[in-house]
């Protein structure tokens, strides 16, 4: 198989920001794939957690920006309890979410909920959903 050599530049500022917010050093990741294999949301993610770590190591912000992964992660912490390198991947996902949410961009619009949804949803769903998916 021919290898394609592509050119990209690592976004160091972005990497630093993810490290600061998450408090995690994703360079410790040795790409074992345990996180991806453990993720209950895996089939719904455009980029699996292992690859998120690889892209962060390389600083490829554009790819991560396009991904639905931080928005589909359920913060279930399964990856985190199993990572042999002790990386809190759930915190890395939170950092990816927050970098976007802190620009005042909502992932879901609370005002778009229908009356039926508001009446039917338990508080715990709305409080946690708004905490995770709105700015």
């Amino acid at each position, binding site marked *: 198989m021919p290898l394609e050599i592509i050119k990209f530049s690592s976004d160091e500022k972005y990497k630093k920001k993810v490290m600061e917010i998450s408090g995690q050093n994703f360079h410790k990741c040795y790409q074992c794939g345990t996180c991806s294999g453990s993720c209950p949301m895996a089939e*719904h993610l455009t980029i699996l957690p292992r690859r998120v770590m690889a892209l962060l190591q390389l600083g490829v912000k554009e790819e991560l920006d396009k991904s639905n992964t931080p928005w589909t992660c359920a913060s279930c912490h399964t990856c985190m309890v199993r990572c042999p390198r002790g990386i*809190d991947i759930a915190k890395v996902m939170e950092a990816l979410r927050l970098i976007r949410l802190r620009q005042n961009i909502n992932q879901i619009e609370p005002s778009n909920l229908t009356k039926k949804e508001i009446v039917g949803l338990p508080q715990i769903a709305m409080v946690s959903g708004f905490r995770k998916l709105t700015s």
Partner: protein
Amino acid sequence: MKISYYPGCTLKTKAKNLERSALACFDVLGIDYEELPRWNCCGAVYSLADDDLLHIIAPVRDLIRVKERGHDTVMTLCSMCYNTLARANELMKNDEKKRYTINTFMDEEPDYAGEVKVVHFLDYLRDVIGWDKLREQIKVPLNDLKVAPYYGCTLLRPREVALDHPDNPTIMQTFLETLGTTVVNFPSATVCCGSYQVLGNPDAALKVSHGILNDAVKHGAEALALACPLCDYNLGFRQDAILNNFPDAREIPVYYFTQLLAVALGTDPAVSHFELNRAGSVQLLKSKKFISGTAS
């Protein structure tokens, strides 16, 4: 000694069946409790950002209220409240710098350093009451009820607040065995139900919830026991959508663990508010003669 009881917002409304059944059990078991005065919502999810202390304030305020009452323990029933309060407590205990910042920020409140113990009713049953003592109190053994214990995430992860081993927990099994049920272990017991993705990505959440229920049914379960109102919403309330969307789905009653305990302790079924569960839930208990035919 008296302990504080922290209800959380959902238990006062949509999950009244969790609260009321649990409080009835507290009375039977002689647990001396007081509902925490001026409690506020804990925020449901613990902040995972290193630079965000603002969202830790709410759960810490609740812990300060407990300390003010002179109680050394606060009891939770909702898994997510447990997780959020327990993690905030660990932070205040172990992170000197953040503790200082939070205490300084809340200068109207007394300082807090993690003096209170956050427990969930399940580990209180195991560690304080004890399974043997609990067994002695069982009036209506739930014999032949095949129940799958469902833990979800927040009782078991992360490790610092886990009630039991994150991958191989037994606490809910032992609890259900103590009630006399036939425990059905299944691989999805610790798989997330989709959680708040019911808002962000409802189809994905529905599919993971379906996978969990299907797994329980395939292993021979007649019912599921759980401890979290969000799990109950995803796995219980949304079963109609699951049944409509997945041809291989089968209906299965979902109970709060406290409802099964309340029935086994012989309390009036009215305290368990089965009208908030799926219709088949109370029918199953009636058909097994655990409760009488007139209870709704």
